């Protein structure tokens, strides 16, 4: 009765549920493997350009697909610069909406390098309501005071609930609020794809 999983609206609000299952094998992906690779390469270049190099740069991925993307971006950057520092951040305990959705999954490790005075690029897979990002900003504050924080996301699907925007966007995808946008990555899900399923038709 109180199981938040029973209500589909509670599911996957941030598109980063930690769940690797999908019923959408037959859905045409909005980005396929090649598309994701190109997008990650572009993100890598934009990040380095915006920072005029990788000095002081720290990539902070939000658990868990944000971390995977941050690692991929780092290895792209490595091809034309030195290796940037990568950290991981789990925001589960900073969320403000546990009473509405329940939180699934055990928090994953947070491993952050020195942030004080550094240029932090926060990285996530899907930007939706902005609540994950708000939680991440709170969490980062507890670790130190970066010179600045910028946000890079693979997919921006709109429907913000907070005054938050991404500085660097891989792909804008117009969606209906109840759509389910998933980023699947080989490291976490066995394949690369960005898929959108209509919650209403999805069993």
């Amino acid at each position: 009765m109180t199981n938040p999983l029973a209500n589909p609206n509670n599911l996957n609000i941030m598109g980063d549920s930690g769940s690797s299952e999908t019923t959408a094998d037959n859905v045409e992906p909005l980005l396929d493997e090649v598309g994701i690779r190109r997008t990650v390469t572009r993100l890598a270049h934009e990040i380095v350009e915006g920072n005029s190099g990788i000095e002081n740069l720290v990539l902070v991925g939000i658990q868990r697909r944000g971390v995977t993307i941050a690692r991929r971006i780092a290895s792209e950057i490595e091809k034309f610069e030195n290796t940037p520092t990568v950290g991981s951040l789990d925001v589960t305990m900073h969320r403000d909406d546990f009473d509405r959705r329940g939180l699934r999954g055990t928090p994953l490790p947070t491993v952050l390098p020195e942030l004080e005075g550094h240029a932090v690029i926060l990285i996530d897979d899907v930007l939706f309501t902005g609540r994950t990002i708000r939680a991440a900003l709170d969490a980062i504050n507890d670790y130190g005071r970066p010179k600045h924080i910028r946000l890079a996301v693979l997919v921006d699907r709109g429907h913000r609930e907070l005054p938050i925007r991404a500085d660097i966007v891989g792909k804008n995808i117009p969606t209906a609020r109840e759509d389910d946008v998933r980023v699947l990555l080989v490291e976490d899900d066995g394949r690369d794809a960005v898929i959108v399923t209509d919650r209403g038709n999805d069993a």
Partner: protein
Amino acid sequence: MTAKANLDIHAIPEEGTTSSHLPSGRWPHHDMLDLDNCRRPDIEVVLTLADRMREILDRRIPRVPALRGYTIVNLFYEPSTRTRVSFELAGKVLGADIISVSTNTSSVVKGESLIDTVRTLRAMRSDAVVMRHPMAGAPYLAAQHTDASIINAGDGAHAHPTQALLDLYTMHRSIGDIAGKKIVMVGDIAHSRVARSDLWGLTTMGAHVVVCGPPTLLALGMRVSDRPSHAENALPPVTIETNIDQAIEDADVVMALRLQSERQEGGLLPSLHEYATHYQVTAERLARAKPDHLLMHPGPKNEGIEIAADVAGGSHSIIEDQVTNGVAVRMALLYLLSGRIEPEEVTELST
């Protein structure tokens, strides 16, 4: 899909499980009274979450809002420093409101019953009550009369599950999986609630547990063959060894227990000196353990009685880790009991 996966972990209650099973995916415990009804996956979730909590404790500002609006009352009918402070810190780091009630300044001295007290606390919207009581079973009685989560912080000589969880976590952090490891508990088993909860936790995690102490300080019914039929499962099966040198032989972990002089009825020991001569954990005796053994003690220590001062502060001692880990484990437990997180099955324990 996730719901189904979670269902598989918690759906089948094992024999002897008394906890009520909440909807799938939830941690299946509403109270934490003892570890006798905790299964391995339940404990593994606590250990994994405790790792996350350690990360928070190491931050510049160790404070997260995960339990904002959650109210915890520390209700201690017995003196305690470390357990009470540990719970207070755990609650505060998670952003909960935590209030400590010392019963000698509360209405308890006016004769308010335990049942009335927990009902009153619930009427004030407390979500969890951390309780220490001199009578075994008191937290169980309390749990029947409130829907706040009751956490047993020690009841008589019966149980102290959060200490056992922090012991498990400390071992896990130092040596990883304890399955098959030889864990030796030395000392006053009979009066030790820590020992009882540890026995459940350690055997559930698959450790080979040896208890050692003078026969008068081994719990009544420690030997399965001594138990009446209705109490066959009152304690998990362990190896009993009254000779400390043999007990410590090849041990991975040696845990010295406090000789509870305040609980000694006459006649159990000839003298403290006699006890120290035969059962004190000393460097000489520890030489028989594995070269990389660990030494633990739940505190407070009586140095020179159950444990020699040099080994308590020595290189094998992880006694101070136990204290720090206690905060992390209690944070994990409070977070789980709050129902604000639905843990997934732990597929891999990080070390």
